[in-house]
């Protein structure tokens, strides 16, 4: 569709309309076409912003734990760190309903096709976090006589955010999710935030909170 419209001018009115849309006066309303690349013919900037805000704040991860990092991924969802504050505690077991794939662990030759299938089953827009050194580059398993481990998931699927560590602390994963939000919307904290958290942990011995 898009290709056809570009070349031939079927209707002069339409051309005029698109010209109008591209003109400076529409800039505040309608975003720069080049900034989005492929996609629908018409985008209205305001809707786009709202949509992106929504997508950024409701990243549902898929339950796809592979190795050590999976435990920290679980830990991130648990009471101490609680990923649900960002609306991401809805770990969906089905790739069809998830937006975010957290590759938490080593990917080897046998797992690679599975990973690809799962990624393809996710509906777009979708994002990928490579969590842990193994997922980023093969980590400690990137050795000379490596016969099985894939050295980085970004060789298989596009990765948006990398979270290093072996395994990273849950804070690292939360930081990664914030980075994904940043990637989607351009700002680190895209929506009105909660202001004054009061943690009872302040009183727990041995755990000081800054």
């Amino acid at each position, binding site marked *: 569709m898009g290709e056809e419209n570009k070349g031939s001018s079927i209707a002069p009115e339409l051309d005029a309309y698109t010209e109008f849309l591209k003109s400076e006066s529409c800039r505040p309303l309608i975003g720069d076409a080049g900034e989005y690349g492929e996609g629908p013919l018409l985008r209205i900037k305001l809707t786009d912003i709202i949509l992106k805000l929504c997508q950024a704040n409701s990243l549902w991860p898929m339950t796809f734990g592979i190795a050590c990092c999976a435990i920290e991924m679980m830990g991130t969802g648990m009471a101490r760190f609680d990923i649900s504050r960002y609306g991401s505690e809805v770990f969906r077991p089905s790739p069809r309903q998830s937006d975010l794939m957290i590759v938490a662990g080593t990917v080897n030759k046998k797992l690679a096709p599975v990973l690809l299938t799962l990624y393809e089953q996710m509906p777009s827009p979708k994002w990928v976090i490579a969590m842990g050194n193994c997922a980023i580059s093969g*980590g400690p398993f990137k050795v000379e006589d490596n016969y099985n481990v894939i050295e980085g998931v970004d060789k298989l699927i596009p990765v948006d955010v990398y979270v290093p560590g072996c395994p990273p602390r849950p804070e690292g994963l939360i930081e990664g999710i914030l980075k994904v939000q940043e990637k989607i919307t351009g700002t680190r904290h895209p929506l009105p935030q909660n202001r004054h958290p009061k943690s009872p942990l302040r009183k727990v011995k041995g755990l000081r909170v800054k």
Partner: protein
Amino acid sequence: MKQYFSELFTGGMSLVEGLGVTMKALFMPIVTVQYPREEIDISPSFRGHIDLILDPEKNSYRCITCGMCEKNCPSNCITVKGEKLEGQKKKSLVLFDLDFTKCSLCGTCVEICPVNALEYSKEYNLAAFSREAFHYDILKRLEERIK
């Protein structure tokens, strides 16, 4: 028949008890540390990636470029290069490169160092858009700190 009713009764009671536990928990304070807004003090022995220790006397690094860390690293993530500059007795460090994405945080490098030139950084919340971001030039980091 007796079992039929007793099972119903004990089963029902156990369910009520379980509900009691969660009800109680509903009104207990939360234990969450809301991360970006409040942070736990990371324990002093936390192992992040390695950093060069800033020697306060020399206002520089202690490293003697012996390469022990490079040799003993099980994941081969350290590259140390030293050069003998003119007018100096010892080699001086020109490159201390760490590929953090390969590191397994075992701590061998810190322990093996004959002059205690390395320490763990306390950076626990790293994340970036590319994997090259974790290719640290530790020497540069140190120089930035000196400044």
